[in-house]
């Protein structure tokens, strides 16, 4: 069964004047259809303002579609009775690590979600421990979040979502405010979740190198899904990606340039190792 199923979703931000008449309408999502199966690693790419965050907020019933429907775990997000089920089914990690940590101590923050769900005390402790271990932050459990690095804070946020035992975890540009080493550790933690825990992951980002290992990628632009497919399929179309102002990963770009110059390389090379192997084959 599909964990997430978005059918022709349209969403408009409507600005109104004092009398309540609409003055300005931004169509942030324009007939978006995305489906995600259990256990998949999905990447959603797009330049700033392409509607990625708007889509993410739909998965958590923070926003509702103007047109079309979204099913999360088989539940319609518009169904008011299911609101909390939807939210505990799809966990959200946001961009700014400082603005989503509620607890004063790492472990208390991770326990916040389960507390809200009414999980018994003993089980909360078990969940906290297992979640912190899954993101490699167990040794920091007694620390104050203010003393952690950005990457560590984001991993705590991920643990906080994991502790709610969601079926799927949605990360909205979790690395955008991090330095390169912080980005690496967060991406490694996310991949670990998908590989080891078989967690369904929807990673929203504008760094393409973070999703080269994804099962499928959706590229968004101006509220529409403009490309979709496996990383290989999507990344072989370098000109379109450049037109969408996305940074193509280094190896893919080099391979594409070489190919344009006449080297017989296959399309969609994603990693440096792959590139080296293919170039050696050409000799």
């Amino acid at each position, binding site marked *: 069964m599909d964990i997430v199923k978005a059918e022709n979703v349209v969403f408009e931000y409507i600005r109104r004047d004092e009398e309540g008449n609409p003055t300005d309408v931004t169509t942030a999502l324009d007939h978006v259809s995305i489906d995600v199966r259990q256990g998949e690693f999905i990447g959603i790419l797009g330049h700033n303002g392409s509607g990625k965050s708007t889509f993410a*907020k739909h998965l958590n019933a*923070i926003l509702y579609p103007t047109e079309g429907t979204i099913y999360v775990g088989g539940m319609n997000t518009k169904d008011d009775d299911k609101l909390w089920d939807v939210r505990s089914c799809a966990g959200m990690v946001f961009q700014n690590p400082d*603005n989503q940590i509620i607890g*004063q101590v790492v472990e208390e923050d991770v*326990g916040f*979600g389960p*507390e809200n769900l009414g999980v018994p*005390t003993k089980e*909360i402790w078990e969940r906290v421990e297992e979640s912190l271990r899954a993101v490699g932050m167990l040794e920091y459990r007694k620390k104050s979040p203010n003393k952690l690095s950005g990457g560590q804070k984001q991993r705590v946020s991920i643990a*906080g979502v994991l502790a709610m035992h969601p079926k799927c975890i949605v990360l909205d540009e979790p690395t955008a405010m991090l330095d390169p080493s912080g980005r690496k550790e967060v991406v490694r933690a996310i991949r670990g979740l998908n590989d080891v825990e078989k967690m369904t992951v929807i990673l929203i980002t504008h760094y393409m190198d973070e999703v080269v290992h994804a099962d499928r990628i959706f590229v968004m632009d101006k509220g529409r899904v403009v490309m979709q497919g496996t990383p290989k399929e999507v990344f072989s179309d370098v000109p379109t990606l450049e037109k969408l102002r996305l940074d193509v990963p280094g190896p893919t770009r080099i391979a594409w340039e070489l190919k344009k110059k006449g080297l017989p390389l296959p399309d969609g090379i994603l990693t440096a190792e792959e590139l080296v192997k293919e170039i050696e084959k050409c000799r």
Partner: protein
Amino acid sequence: MIRDITIGQYYQTESPVHRLDPRVKLLGTLLFIITLFLYKNPAGYALGIVFLLAVIKTSRVPIRFITKGLKGILVVLLLTVIINLFLTPGTELVSFWKFTITYEGIGVALTMLFRLTMLIMGSSIVTLTTTPNNLTDGLEKGLGFLKIFRGPVGDVAMMMSIALRFIPILMEETDRIMKAQLARGADFESGNIVKKAKALVPVLVPLFVSAFRRAGDLAMAMEARCYRGGDGRTKMKPLIYKKRDAIAYIILFSFVILSVWIGRWQVISEFFNSLYLRFILK
């Protein structure tokens, strides 16, 4: 400057006072403050001081952390002392120009100084030995009876704990904005108080904008994690009284009873007062 305020700052160490249930500490502070107003003679003051020092010693918090809280209200303290010193009517001690100091004035001023100092130090102990979270838990549970009157105790406790968590973040941000404005040639030091206040506007405006944005983000993050108000939540760290809390309560109530008793020693009080007036002030 902002960092001098001790209230809300936790001093991390291991001590029996740190491990006490926050409810004990909160009730303890309340009772301690009440006893301060019971004393009618120096023996009572001495008892209060001995008790406070004993608690400080047990808490293993360096005394300078506790007195740091006093710095923040130094002005208030001085003002109280001066006003009481000069404005209490009674038997004249000295007088110059328009001012008169009376014996009673000295007595009242010293009493106020004592009460305020002890009050601040006593409450600092609680905030220094209790994590803010633990403190709000204590308040939540301790004031839980208000729920009968539909008081939103849980929500208020959550608000307090979030406010406490964001204090260091907002302080850092203030610092950052001030530096950014300094780099653009802002001047926070010179001029009179009006000018200084005006210079703060370019700091406060971005600070408020950012605080509102943070609040919005945080509210969304909390909703996404299924926060729906204080009811129906379970606790990761529920407050449960232990044996040491019972012992602390016994000590506390013994102290209160002792205070009531000593505080009412009128005879001794008069004896001390006359000694005090005769030898110390003359």
